[in-house]
């Protein structure tokens, strides 16, 4: 019997390999294609106030053991000039979501398998679907209109080039009209903006700077071209606490100065509470709850969010033991058909064994994906139904 099972397993693995190979080939072909007609990636925004709209984004990794659905059907918006915090534990797909915007997933294993990322490009007035846009188009956007701050300041800078080289490279690339002197001037200004005023900094190599300084350089690099959106992927995780505070202050200040949107990815709820206007909570590759910072912090609806809030250390509360959510994240290769959080959930109901819960609107801004809130969701919909004529009667058991 076990031999049979083994055989089946082998067959499965073989099929996975074949499937992956096909996917890799498709990817390589796509990457080699020089021209993509504009019609393939031009779309319309749902709300022109947004700078980015994720619509059912799916980013998969095709690995030897099977397809890992790192991001599976994520939809949320980033409004212009606001800060949006994306929270969740490690491996929930936060970083993959952000890398998908920049199309920086490690190919050919990691690919965007479906969905749209609509980008409202101010300079041309077009709306691009970044999931399909040509590489040429992406190169113009990267570092210029959307820029990224990475997690590890120790490894994000190239060790063999000077700070000046790496910073000026970025500026002159997107501003070809500038001459060398102007570029250097701009680089120094940007460094000043992030609080580095040091003689000869441009001639320093990354290893000659401390971690905090390097992270400032990385931030300067991200801000050098006045981007409309800055993606900060755990910008403070690798730094110690005092520097963390400085960097966060810096980010907030800079946001106001250049009026950019910030997509702040973190697992630190404290940081989110301090910085974000909107919060998106992710779990196992899906959005489980989203809303304004007030919605999430004062009226958390999803059991996972509630758990996250409870597991936060509080200064003014005396607890014997910090709360922790029991169990583990499900295996990302074979995700169950029911709610992914079911096995760790303390308030399961019968319906949880059924289909994955749909997104339910609790208010204008607050949405949650949980069976517990079907009634509340139905109520909101009925209230809004008079206006929108969409109030459906959900069968409440």
């Amino acid at each position, binding site marked *: 019997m076990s031999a049979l099972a083994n055989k089946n397993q082998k067959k499965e693995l073989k099929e996975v390999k074949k499937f992956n190979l096909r996917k890799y080939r498709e990817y390589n072909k796509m990457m080699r294609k020089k021209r993509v007609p504009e019609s393939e990636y031009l779309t319309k925004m749902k709300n022109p106030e947004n700078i980015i709209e994720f619509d059912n984004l799916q980013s998969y990794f095709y690995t030897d053991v099977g397809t890992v659905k790192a991001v599976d059907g994520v939809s949320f918006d980033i409004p212009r000039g606001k800060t949006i915090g994306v929270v969740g534990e490690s491996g929930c797909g936060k970083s993959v979501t952000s890398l998908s915007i920049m199309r920086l997933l490690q190919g050919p294993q990691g690919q965007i398998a479906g969905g749209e990322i609509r980008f409202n490009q101010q300079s041309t007035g077009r709306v691009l679907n970044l999931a399909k846009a040509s590489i040429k188009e992406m190169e113009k956007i990267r570092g210029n209109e959307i820029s990224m701050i990475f997690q590890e300041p120790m490894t994000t800078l190239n060790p063999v080039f000077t700070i000046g080289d790496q910073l000026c490279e970025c500026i002159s690339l997107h501003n070809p009209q500038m001459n060398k002197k102007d570029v250097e001037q701009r680089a120094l200004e940007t460094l000043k903006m992030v609080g580095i005023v040091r003689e000869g900094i441009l001639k320093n190599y990354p290893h000659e700077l401390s971690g905090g300084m390097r992270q400032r350089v990385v931030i300067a690099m991200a801000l050098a071209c006045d981007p409309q959106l800055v993606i900060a992927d755990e910008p403070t995780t690798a730094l110690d606490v005092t520097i963390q505070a400085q960097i966060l202050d810096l980010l907030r200040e800079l946001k106001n100065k250049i009026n950019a949107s910030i997509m702040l990815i973190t697992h630190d709820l404290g940081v989110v509470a301090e910085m974000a206007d909107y919060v998106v909570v992710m779990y196992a590759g899906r959005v489980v709850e989203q809303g304004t910072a007030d919605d999430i912090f004062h009226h958390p609806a999803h059991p996972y969010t509630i758990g996250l809030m409870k597991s936060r250390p509080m200064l003014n509360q005396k607890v014997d033991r910090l709360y922790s959510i029991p169990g583990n994240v499900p295996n990302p290769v074979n995700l169950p058909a029911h709610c992914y959080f*079911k*096995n760790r*959930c*303390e308030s*399961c*109901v019968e319906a949880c064994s059924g289909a994955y819960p749909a997104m339910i609107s609790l208010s204008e801004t607050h949405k949650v994906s949980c069976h517990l809130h079907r009634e509340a969701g139905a109520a909101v919909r009925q209230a809004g139904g008079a206006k929108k004529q969409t109030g459906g009667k959900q069968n409440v058991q």
Partner: protein
Amino acid sequence: MEDLQERNQLEQDEFEQNQVILTPGQLVAKRFFRNKLACVGLGIIIVMILFCAIGPFISPYGEYEIFYINSTTGEEVRMKEDSVGGSDMGINVKAPISSAHWLGTDADGRDVMTRLMYGGRISLFVGIIVVAIELVIGVLMGGIAGYYGGAVDMIIMRLVEIFNSIPFIPLMLIISSVLFASGVKPQHKIFWIMGIMGVLYWAGVARLVRGQILSLRELEYMQAAEATGIRTSKKILKHLIPNVMPIIILIATMDIGGVILTESVLSYLGVGIAWPFASWGNMVDVVKQSVILKNYINIWLPPGICILLTVLAWNFIGDGMRDAFDPRMKR
């Protein structure tokens, strides 16, 4: 509500129990056998070993047996038969491929197929023995250098440097000329060559093992082991050796191919295994005679292909091993 939670707990437990947990060894084996090329390599080696180990028992001829031919009747005569002495007898050299000689006979009238089997024995044997010698010396020296460090390390590493700055083939030439001058018998020469190659190859092994041990000593778990105050012998046996093992196995598989190749080169150059013993390398050296190179491909092509296949197979296995041990670094 309560039993729902219980059910969830049960489900979770069941899920965890169903997770097949493999030992590191099993994982390596699994990854190795998933690599198709590695399996092909293993297959080739097994076939080669069978061919060389069992072949000579099946073959009706001996390694140095010379065949004669009756020039009038065209009949072939074996060495031990009485009629060999006759006047119309000639040596059956460079016979074409026939049912009696599947690969014909060579320039001395010996059966190529049979010599291929004996030659393979030597090649495979040399590969394994040399690697065994280099491993024993290299692991010992590298281990001592890496574990004790300080002055011992300094001395051993300088020794390694000395051995590394003499290219192998030229050094082998000088050794061979010394052997030649001191009149070592051909049947002993092969052991000399194996011993010398093993001794000369240790430096590379020592450097790798030392590097591995040095990096292991830096790792947290070694410091943790140190902090718990376990005995040195236990530390070496339980923590160091199991972690150095992969690199030793890797060197072994990767080097066997190289050693076989080098041995064949030495034999070809005439400073390795010599007449009358067959080795794949000295079977190819007949190409120095342009008549054979031009007209008797059946004499020199098969041993060359055997070397190529065997070395290729060891390289495939080595690659498979490396991937299996270190899945991060694919191929």
